[in-house]
């Protein structure tokens, strides 16, 4: 049997490589798309039109009320039975984006509502319409408020990408599983995988602090 310490170091390389080339891009892309969905859903949710806000409410409820794994399986294994067959990678991106969209929508909604009503009125009184008020006045202020909770969402997402291994995406955890199956050193290999996830999330936390400081320059707290 190989030296466990040596195996740990040896497996770190391929696991980290899969982390950087698959897990991180999957998380980044899904988060970016999810954020767009979240902003749209949040705006629908605060709409005065009951049908529009009802649709948003329903979407959020379904996403939050069903397991991520089930959502992935519906898209990857379920859709082919109604004639829609997607590759693992796009399936994972779609499922993760929709999932993030549902969770982040509530964060974005709360952040928008946290901006004082006087800001809307001041924007209206200088002549802005609703869209311009949102993009120029409300969302920039909501952004600062939503950085900490959205960072949590993002960190959860990074870890949730491990579920994509179950729909055949060769991401970080899938690579770890393959090495573990070949060597039967489960403890060592999965600890190596855990370490890589942890390092990725640490880097993200630093990014969060930097972003908060940057946004804080403009506003007294």
């Amino acid at each position, binding site marked *: 049997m190989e030296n466990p310490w040596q195996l740990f170091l040896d497996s770190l390389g391929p696991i980290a490589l899969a982390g950087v080339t698959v897990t991180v891009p999957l998380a980044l892309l899904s988060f970016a798309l999810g954020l767009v969905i979240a902003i749209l859903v949040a705006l629908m949710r605060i709409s005065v039109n009951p049908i529009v806000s009802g649709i948003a409410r329903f979407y959020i409820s379904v996403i939050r009320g069903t397991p991520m794994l089930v959502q992935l399986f519906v898209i990857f294994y379920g859709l082919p039975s109604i004639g829609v067959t997607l590759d693992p990678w796009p399936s994972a991106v779609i499922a993760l984006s929709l999932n993030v969209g549902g969770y982040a929508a509530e964060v974005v909604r709360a952040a928008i509502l946290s901006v004082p009503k006087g800001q809307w009125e001041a924007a209206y009184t200088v*002549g802005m319409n609703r869209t311009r008020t949102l993009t120029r006045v409300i969302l920039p202020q909501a952004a600062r408020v939503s950085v900490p909770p959205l960072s949590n969402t993002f960190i959860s997402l990074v870890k949730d990408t491990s579920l994509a291994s179950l729909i055949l995406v060769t991401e970080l955890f899938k690579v770890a599983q393959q090495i573990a199956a070949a060597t039967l050193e489960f403890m060592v290999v999965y600890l190596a995988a855990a370490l890589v996830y942890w390092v990725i999330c640490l880097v993200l936390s630093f990014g969060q602090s930097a972003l908060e400081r940057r946004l804080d320059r*403009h*506003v007294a707290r």
Partner: protein
Amino acid sequence: MSLADDHTSTADRLLTARGLRKSFGENEVLRGIDLTLHRGEVVVLIGPSGSGKTTVLRALNGLETPDAGEIVVAGGPDIDFAPTERVPARVQKQKRLALRDRSAMVFQHHNLFPHLTVLQNVIEGPWRVQGRPKAEVVAEAQALLARVGLADKADARPHELSGGQQQRVGIVRALALRPDLLLFDEPTSALDPELVGEVLLVIKELADDGWSMVVVTHELSFAREAADHVLFMDGGVVIEQGSPGQLFGAPQHERTKRFLTRILRPLDGD
């Protein structure tokens, strides 16, 4: 003959509001308000809190839609809020927006945009919304800032300013829109007492320069000095109106007298 004496004349009338009514749920805030203002005039609204003063101002800026009544601004728009008439919401909204184009509001809490610089706050309306040339707008903004003593604050963020400075920027932001009518909603109520004077002074200077304005305030000394016409409101109606001399010197109604006494001699009781 002072302006206040011919306050009812129709010559050079800028603003006429008639029969404004507004309820929030069960609470009837405005119960038929009439108000006229001639070009260059300063009309001051006084009254206890909850009397509807602020709601009148917000209606004039299109931030609130009255349930009934009409607002006519010389040169348009002419808005009828008659509830019987089936006016599509879209048309009503367009009219409210047209109303907003004619006036500019200074809020009790300055409501400056905290993520923008002072200059950006000021040019946002005239440049980005009204679409005037940026160079022209910036030059005008800087001149206005200099005028209120804030020439060196153009690149500061609102939170770096004192309350009085913030409110002066709020005034400049309103002026930069080149409105026909300035609306002040208790512009000094949120300020520390020592900062009130600098803001009132700016407003007084604007009044002297001939700006038309409606001011809601509790600063009676300001009303006495700057107003052409004072309205005392209580319970959603105008109880009494007249020149500052008439209203403060010889109030006719018991409620006016009681209010003035409470403000001027708060410790006396009644």
